């Protein structure tokens, strides 16, 4: 458990962004694995392990996190699931180390203004602070981030397709 803890909790953080919730979910994930470890029998490497654990154990638990809350929301159950516990995608194909490496490379391919907006966001700055830094409006920053994120997605998709 000690060996996989860091890897699993960092992966859960992608979906929840909250350490306390990540720990609660992970607690159930480990208990589920203990109860039914069959899916992990043929795991070959770290990427395969992460993918299998996400698919068979984490997703189910992630879906339960906000299920009760969903009754009072306008978001449909399916959209909620897609937001909190999506299907296998780019996220599940990359380990943390791989992700950092690829993202770093992709950021290098962006225009300087786009790269700066994303880097400042990743440093924890608010959109208002980013707007001040780039000498523009908050609305323009949001649009710039949106377009850049879509650009990054295309690059990541091309990379994973090649891989």
């Amino acid at each position: 458990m000690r060996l996989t803890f860091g890897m699993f909790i960092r992966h859960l953080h992608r979906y929840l962004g909250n350490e306390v919730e990540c720990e609660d979910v992970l607690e159930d994930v480990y208990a589920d694995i203990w109860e039914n470890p069959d899916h992990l029998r043929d795991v070959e490497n770290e990427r395969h392990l992460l993918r299998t654990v996400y698919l068979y154990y984490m997703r189910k638990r992630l879906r339960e996190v906000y299920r009760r809350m969903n009754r009072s929301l306008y978001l449909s159950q399916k959209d909620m699931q897609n937001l909190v516990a999506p299907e296998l995608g780019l996220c599940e194909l990359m380990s943390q180390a791989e992700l950092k490496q690829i993202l770093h490379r992709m950021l290098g391919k962006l225009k300087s203004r786009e790269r700066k907006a994303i880097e400042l966001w990743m440093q924890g700055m608010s959109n208002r602070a980013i707007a001040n830094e780039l000498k523009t409006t908050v609305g323009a920053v949001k649009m710039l981030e949106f377009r850049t994120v879509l650009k990054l997605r295309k690059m990541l998709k091309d990379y994973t397709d090649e891989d």
Partner: protein
Amino acid sequence: MANVNREVQELLADYAAALRDGCLPAFLKSLTREEAGRIHESEEFWEATEVVRLMNSAGFGEGVVTPDVGLFISRVDAGIASRLKKGKASTRSRSRSRSHANL
């Protein structure tokens, strides 16, 4: 999140901020019916959320630390013990009801 009629790019920015700050429920609650519909229909929004999760992970995932992994492990052990107890209790009650039925 005071704006109640946000465009897709604004919704994505707010989702990203909520994810980064660990307050996703606040974002979910802030969605109006129109905004939820807008999200539902926007393929670009869903594509962008995938990258936002990766950015969040690359930027802040490393900082996720649990002060005491030993304590966490003991919580998992307790959870497993409680499941075992529940399992035993349910088999006992099942066998008891079966023996009552035989009487």
